């Protein structure tokens, strides 16, 4: 294994925008009708979310990613997790990676909690037998034994999250990517999760946390990155990055431009 758990170089990501207004094609019918009328489809509009992100996460580090809504944090996480493929750039992940994104872990809503544990374990590369050995610790940690054979669509968001957290951390990945998950659950569960994360860090695992809560970054992270409009605006020690982030927000609030409008195309002069 190399010394870096994650290496991202020149990551760009743009999304095709789905427009439901006339001229957008979301149905076969509309596509056919326009084609039959000889109407040219409007050029696909794209939303540029990441515009060249370089990021290296050393093995064993805990990285906090901060940024305003729409800055590309979640997209970056999904690229690390292999859910999105970048439009341009290179991703290198060294080790088994588990992700807790959008308060979920890739559950099948119709499957029971137990079946989802197996499903997730297999997706994360564990064999059935390995999961057999881990299933009781997972169920115990999630405190869902009573409901474990019920379909997860009947779970509350808290139950869902607890199960997702229990699976992702018990399955023992080398890299854990979490999106705002440490704040969910009651105090008791939060304490338990915190212990689990501490333990995870102590064993030299790599952790990536995306959050809006500065306190989370201060408490957990050795490194921080501030993502702004798809670019890394600052990186380094959490205290410095947070300070830069806060002052920029304060500055924007004063000038009344907190809500960054539509992003200018890449290459355009930035305000």
């Amino acid at each position, binding site marked *: 294994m190399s010394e870096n758990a994650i290496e991202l170089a020149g990551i760009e990501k743009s999304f095709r925008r789905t427009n439901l207004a006339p001229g957008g094609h979301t149905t076969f019918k509309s596509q056919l009708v326009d084609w039959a009328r000889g109407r040219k489809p409007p050029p696909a509009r794209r939303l540029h979310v990441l515009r060249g992100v370089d990021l290296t996460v050393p093995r064993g580090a805990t990285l906090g990613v901060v940024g305003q809504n729409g800055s590309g944090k979640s997209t970056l996480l999904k690229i690390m*997790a292999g*859910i*999105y493929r970048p439009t341009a750039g290179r991703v290198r992940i060294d080790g088994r990676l588990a*992700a807790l994104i959008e308060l979920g872990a890739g559950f099948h809503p*119709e499957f029971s909690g137990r079946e989802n544990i197996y499903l997730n374990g297999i*997706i994360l590369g564990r064999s*059935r037998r390995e999961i057999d050995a881990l299933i009781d610790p997972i169920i115990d940690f999630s405190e869902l034994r009573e409901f474990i054979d019920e379909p997860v669509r009947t779970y509350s968001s808290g139950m869902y999250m607890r199960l997702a957290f229990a699976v992702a951390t018990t399955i023992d990945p080398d890299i854990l990517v979490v999106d705002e998950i440490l704040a969910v659950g009651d105090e008791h569960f939060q304490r338990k999760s915190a212990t689990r994360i501490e333990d995870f860090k102590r064993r030299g695992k790599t952790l990536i946390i995306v959050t809006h809560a500065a306190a989370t970054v201060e408490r957990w992270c050795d490194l921080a990155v501030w993502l702004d409009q798809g670019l890394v605006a600052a990186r380094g020690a959490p205290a410095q990055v947070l300070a830069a982030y806060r002052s920029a927000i304060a500055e924007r609030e004063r000038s009344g431009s907190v809500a960054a409008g539509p992003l200018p195309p890449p290459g355009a002069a930035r305000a």
Partner: protein
Amino acid sequence: MSNLRELFQYRALLWALTTRELRGRYRGSLLGFLWTFANPLLLMSVYAIVFGVFMAQQLPHYTYFMFVGLLPWLWFSSAVVGGTTSLSTKRDLLTRVKFPPQVLPAVVILSELCNYLLALPLMIGLALLSGVVLRPVALLFPMVLALQALFTVALVLATSSLNVFYRDLQHLLTNLLTLWFFLAPIIYPASAIPARFREAAILADPMAVVVTSYQAIFYYGTLPDFRALALAAGMSIVLLFMALSIFESRRDEFAELV
């Protein structure tokens, strides 16, 4: 091709999802198993009454004849219907973990295949009841089955990825399948098609080739038309390559659009 290779790498996942699907369906009981046949059996009784009694066909053992073609058709049509929506309804899986998308349509095709195979004893039972003797040509079954699988995989790979982009495809397909069902010689023998178009109507439609081949080996006890099988296999392979390129070019966007 990398999509198919990856499917093999993820066979543990494929297996887990397929067995889960079947377990869920059968609920571990004989009754549950029979229940899954309630729908096809009902459908078959409708056809058996309409075409066996009301509009009586000249064909001996008509009900058995119909069974031979209808069972594989049900595999095909349920795989197409279920497979087409298999990606577009799995948002939770595709957007939160790195999930190999081709596993999802494959699971549908496989579990429907198991249904078909499990229904075969019913068909053989009916053959015995009707006094039809199965000939050794029936051993060609795996070959016809393989061709059907190839064609189904190719078609479903294409429709499942397109349905992520055009959500109305699934409704269109359901209707097309009904049309297709009546165009293929399933509830009537191929000889009922006017001689002028008979050959063209069968050769142009891989499913018609598949169904008439099943009828040849199970009902007529004759060799299937190998020329037609080869042609259908060729068409399926071409379709498979097209489907794989559609799937490959779109797969990056599944997680973004489901």
